[in-house]
């Protein structure tokens, strides 16, 4: 009798432990679900799809922030400027091609032109991230560990100022955008009309996050990145060159942000301070779900985007920053390390 009852008792306790561990996550998710239903009935299902698009992008940016903080212990406040660079690259690659296409139409080229812009933006992001890490963080690391988090935070804030003002100096404060990437009519799906750009942006965001996750989980280098984020000394002892991992991580994060910038060029026109808003929303996501949690970042991205869309719908667009910030403060009071808990060790523990 006793032997029989034991195995059934175990899963029960596990469920209870699971519920109590993710209590705040469950509450927040149920709340968001209700909000989503209200939004869909009041404003129509198309607003839900817009939420998915922006949510996917916030998630992509948040994953980059999480990765950099987890591996390098850098709170990157220049992440938005990578987004800005990506938007500009996307614009400067796409516009000449589309001008050329007006003179001599070519169906294939017009189909892949936006992808060219996005790919070039990602590649430039990769190089930019590598250079920034080599020129800014590596020299700083040579000076020792004390005050690292504060110092690098200040460096990234400074970098953000320099990049914004440098871009203004170089290109002026003008807005540069493209109304749309493709001249394909919107697709009818589930009774709503969806712009192709949005569909592609959503698809690319999910694909990139999935590829990043696969890379981190399955590949040798990805395993090395996770190893560095968990124990730097241990990583060195098994033969991992920390400097290479730092460079790669920062380059990857910058590349994904730049890619997001190019993907969303039809929503956010390129101008020097375009990266600030995506940066703030990405930080909201990170604060909401806890650092170093990729699966959490996806859910968090959608929750934050939902809050944002709902605020626009019910309070007006000028409240867009206020309500999400207010909710974030509430969440932080109840669950200081995010609703899923943080997988990243605090600085004190390392």
């Amino acid at each position, binding site marked *: 009798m006793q032997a029989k009852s034991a195995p059934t008792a175990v899963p029960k306790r596990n469920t209870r432990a699971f519920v109590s561990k993710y209590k705040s996550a469950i509450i927040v998710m149920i709340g968001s679900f209700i909000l989503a239903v209200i939004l869909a009935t009041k404003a129509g299902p198309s607003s839900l799809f817009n939420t998915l698009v922006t949510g996917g992008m916030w998630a992509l940016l948040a994953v980059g922030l999480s990765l950099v903080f987890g591996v390098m212990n850098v709170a990157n406040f220049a992440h938005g400027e990578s987004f800005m660079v990506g938007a500009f690259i996307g614009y400067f690659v796409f516009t000449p091609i589309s001008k050329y296409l007006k003179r001599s139409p070519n169906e294939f080229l017009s189909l892949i032109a936006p992808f060219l812009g996005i790919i070039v933006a990602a590649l430039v992001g990769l190089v930019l991230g590598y250079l920034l890490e080599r020129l800014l963080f590596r020299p700083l690391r040579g000076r020792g560990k004390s005050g690292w988090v504060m110092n690098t935070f200040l460096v990234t804030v400074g970098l953000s100022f320099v990049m914004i003002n440098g871009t203004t100096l170089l290109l002026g404060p003008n807005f540069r955008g493209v109304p749309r990437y493709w001249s394909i009519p919107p697709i009818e799906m589930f009774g709503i009309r969806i712009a192709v750009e949005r569909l592609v942006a959503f698809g690319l965001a999910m694909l990139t996050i999935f590829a990043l996750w696969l890379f981190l989980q399955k590949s040798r280098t990805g*395993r090395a990145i*996770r190893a560095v984020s*968990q124990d730097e000394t241990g990583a*060195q002892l*098994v*033969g*991992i060159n920390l400097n290479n991992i730092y460079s790669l991580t920062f380059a990857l994060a910058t590349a994904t942000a730049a890619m997001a910038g190019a993907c969303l060029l039809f929503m956010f026109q390129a101008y020097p301070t375009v990266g600030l808003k995506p940066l703030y929303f990405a930080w909201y996501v990170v604060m909401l779900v806890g650092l170093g949690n990729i699966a959490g970042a996806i859910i968090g991205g959608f929750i934050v985007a939902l809050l944002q869309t709902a605020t626009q719908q019910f309070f007006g667009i000028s409240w867009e920053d206020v309500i999400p910030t207010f909710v974030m403060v509430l969440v932080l009071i109840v669950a200081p390390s995010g609703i899923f808990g943080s997988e990243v060790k605090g600085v004190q523990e390392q």
Partner: protein
Amino acid sequence: MLKVSHLDASYGFLQILWDVTLEVGDGEFVALIGPNGAGKSTTMRTIAGLLKPSAGQIEFNGAAIGGVPAHEVTRKGISYVSESLNLFTGMSVRDNLLLGAYIVPDKRKQLETLDFVFSLFPRLAERQNQLSGTMSGGERKMLAIARGMMSNPTLMLVDEPSLGLAPHLVADVFNSLRKLQERGVTILLVEQRVNATLAITDRAYVLEHGRITLDGPSRDLKNNEHVRKAYMGI
């Protein structure tokens, strides 16, 4: 194989090691014993490349490795099992072990070593999918030693494997070290359990206040007046 001569090392302005000279021959099992705070771990950390020596040479198979970064020292065939283990606690046992073989490019060779390690520590084979952070102290020690073996080192530096372990587990750990040595791996062992250590090692050095004060075959040191008085309480 390993030749450390006139080594000085310090943390900031605080000098820990003073003129440490020691040698480990091919296939030998050598112990480094001494009281708390004598600099045993510092010696190991310096050899492993985690700490830059302020003076002196470290030579491994004829090549100077003093001041070479830790990840390159590992590539030369030295594996350091640290006192705090430095496991990747959020990863499975298997992932920890595969990371131990990070410098081995050949995947088949990695899996071969993994099989060998599992045969040496069957417990780890049973738990290969468990997160390493959720294992008991003894199992973690085993995992750290096993991870150190995954890079096929020729020299292993093992730092206080008995620390915080129940007595019967200590015997297990010591046995596994013995087995390792029989496989031809050279071992430099830091330990506080002087009696047990001198029983299984070939030679030993005594480190006190950052200086080598005694050295010789373990058998002789066991009967040394000073060692008996200071470390065995006889």
